[in-house]
């Protein structure tokens, strides 16, 4: 759940940032990012003064927090009116949206990391509420639709494929392979998994649970922003669209039992097909059908795996 929400809003942020860069305007993301970084610095300062840290260390910490947001913001401010090529703007967008993950983690979650799942879930709700409202403030209520990354169309035995669809598919497969390799093969990925299973145990093995949290939120923000970039050309994105898109992704992940990337892809394809067909046959009920579809999935999962205990 925490994942849904942290993945969900960067979708909107990614798409909207790119749209505003395309329009030659400095995106609201810049101010949002700077404000968020400022608040985190403030929080660190208050904590630091309380713990009587030295001024030098506090300054260094503040500089570390501010460096990336400030640099990317300056770059965005410089680049916005210059109408750079699309890939450059996309990269800039990723660079702008990804740091949101860590900043939000540090603001809302870090000091609560040892709290129960229940509390974290409610915190996520609070973060979602605040981010949606702030998204409205920084981006406005206007929706945007981005131009495609690749306008080419292919026809393959009667099926027309757009270049954009191919890019989306390639990016999904690349992410699946990348995440799989990262979590199965690399030490950092295994450390992250260990933290997810047992924080205390992982900490005793020298894994910092706070950097694990920052890392996973950064990854979630990056993936969210990337999917926002990719989805931007296919639909009109508003400041709060990410929530629904993220939820549909979660429905897909439930198909996979929240544990397998390839199965999640299959689930996502299923959700997408269901949505397309229902918008064709019964457009008024599109969302009802998509979200109603979770019920049979839950039934199947509860019959298959009834003893999922949380203790």
């Amino acid at each position, binding site marked *: *759940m925490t994942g849904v929400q942290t993945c969900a809003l960067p979708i909107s942020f990614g798409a909207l940032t790119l749209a505003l860069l395309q329009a030659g305007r400095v995106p609201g993301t810049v101010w949002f990012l700077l404000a968020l970084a400022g608040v985190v610095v403030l929080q660190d300062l208050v904590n630091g003064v309380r713990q009587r840290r030295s001024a030098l260390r506090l300054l260094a910490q503040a500089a570390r927090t501010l460096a990336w947001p400030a640099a990317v913001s300056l770059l965005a401010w410089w680049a916005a009116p210059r109408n750079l090529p699309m890939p450059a703007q996309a990269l800039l967008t990723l660079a702008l949206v990804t740091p949101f993950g860590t900043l939000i983690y540090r*603001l*809302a979650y870090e*000091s*609560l990391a040892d*709290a*129960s*799942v*229940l*509390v974290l*879930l*409610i*915190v996520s*709700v*609070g*973060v*979602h*509420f*605040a*981010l*949606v*409202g*702030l998204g*409205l*403030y920084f981006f*406005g*209520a206007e929706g945007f639709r981005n131009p495609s990354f690749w306008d080419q169309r292919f026809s393959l035995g009667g099926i027309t494929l757009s270049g954009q669809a191919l890019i989306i598919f390639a990016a999904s497969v690349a992410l699946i392979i990348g995440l799989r390799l990262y979590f199965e093969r690399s030490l950092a990925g295994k450390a992250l998994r260990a933290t997810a299973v047992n924080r205390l145990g992982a900490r005793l093995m020298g894994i910092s649970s706070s950097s694990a949290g920052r890392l996973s939120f950064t990854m979630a923000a990056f993936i969210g922003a990337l999917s926002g970039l990719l989805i931007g050309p296919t639909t009109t994105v508003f400041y709060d669209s990410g929530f*629904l898109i993220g*939820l549909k992704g*979660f*429905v897909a992940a*439930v198909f996979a039992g*929240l544990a397998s990337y390839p199965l999640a892809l299959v689930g996502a394809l299923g959700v997408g097909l269901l949505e397309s067909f229902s918008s064709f046959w019964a457009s*008024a*009920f*599109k*969302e*009802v059908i998509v*979200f*109603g579809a*979770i*019920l049979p999935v*839950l*039934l199947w*999962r*509860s019959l298959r*795996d*009834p*003893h*999922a*205990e*949380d*203790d």
Partner: protein
Amino acid sequence: MRRWAFPAFAAVMLALPLLPVPDFWITQSIYIGLYALVALGLVLLTGVAGLISFGQAAFVGVGAYTAAFLAVRLGLSPPLTLLAGLALCVAAALLLGALTLRMSGHYLPLATIAWGLALNYTMANMEWLGKYDGILGIPMLSLFGVELGTGRGLHPLVWSLALLAALGCLRLLDSRAGRAIRALKSGSTMAEAMGISTFRCKLTVFVIAAMLAGVSGWLFAYFQRSVSPSPFGINKGIEYLFMAVLGGVGKVWGAFAGAAAVRLTEDQLQVLLPRLLGTSGNFETIVFGIVLVGVLKYAPDGLWSFVGRWLPAPQRRRDWAGASALPRRARPPRGEALLQVQAVRKQFGGLVAVNDVSFEVAGGDIVALIGPNGAGKSTLFNLVTGVLPLSAGVVRWRGADIAGKPSRVIARLGISRTFQHVKMIPEMTVLENVALGGYGRTRCGALRAVLRLDRAEERQLFAEAEAQLARIGLAERAHEPAGNLALGPQRLLEIARALATDPALLLLDEPAAGLRHHEKQALAAVLRQLKADGISLLLVEHDMDFVMGLADRVVVMEFGTKLMEGTPAQVQASPAVRAAYLGTEH
């Protein structure tokens, strides 16, 4: 003081329309009552039972739309529309609950989000529900021929329902069913071991929360005299959760505090923030979101804790003197083969934690299970009591195969247990914790608790709990919160709780750990007394003095296999056992 707080508050709220209060405040007060009804459900669901629902606004919507549709299109009277709305809410809650409550953690929140969204889109897209315009022209609410209007007339009805709901929740929480619900938050293993069906408990709470939301929706429809989809969306669902958390999860009056705080600030923020920010929009969510995170960080007990700490803690009146005893099961005759464990096996992946272990416990026996750490003793306990499923083997209880039965069924057959890591509800008193053990021997459910038809049985239950505490030597601490106890007395509490189930066989997992020397001696005396009363004991223990002085027979395990079985003297003389504990000489 506490006795008068509720009647005084109720009197003020019910008499409010008679006082010279401006209409604006009457309207606000009605909203607070409506919100508090929903938040009360979430206090039970989230605060007490530890379950999350984002779909409460959808249940409000079901209540409101049912009332609106039936009143406008079919001209049905308010009581009928209420019944129909409640029936729909219950049906939806049962379906969602049945699908998700058997599974862990995030499935209920997810399902309620999906349900909230799906229902909201249905309302907004259905021709016969008026699409985005909703249903207009709902008649005024009239009961027994009296038209209540939408302001001062409706206020007493809203508040009497809200106050009755609060009273019902308080009564429920102080009852057999309520204690079972309070046990849900700390995992299901202990509750199931006390004979509680945690699934049914969760379902009960979820249905109650849905019904409270449905009542609120019914009132809402007659109050607004029109319904449209927007007040029942997912954001509103989150806002209700916010009210419950802000007020203080788990506190009945917190629901009212949270509802009042949200309602009174929402209006102000909706005016203030757009002016401050210079554009229009629902910016109050920013404040709510930040406040929500802040509350969880800095005041996790919510607003009510600031009020509640000034109120004296409620004292349980000792009204069970002379209550008749709960029925006891007939003790099995001494020497009857009670528990037969035959070639029981448990594998976790490639690890064989329990490897074809067999032994027996006869009526009136004290059998000790010993072995080095990691020998599989606690796993064996979990297999016998149905906490873990067997990989292979047979467990017989008085001749009948009980392998694979859920632990609540096994508990009701007369096998009770304590846990190696104490599992209790720290915020309940010692006495209430022990009363949890009597769950399987009593009947009264949630409805009887709300109507206070359960008092005679409650007296029996508390008399039993008190007797068991006295038996174990913990009687003078009965009214303390269980969380105040040190580890040793906590273990005694678990034994008393297990005894309250009226077991024929008691499984004790390291009962003497954390006890001082003389406390151990007292415990040994109690266990001998239990044996004399015809209760058989199977215990895991590391203190050899304790075990050897107490047990009739000792089963030794090592690396999941049974090393040997015999009298304490035989075991002490065995070179194999000595090798297992101390290593071999080379």
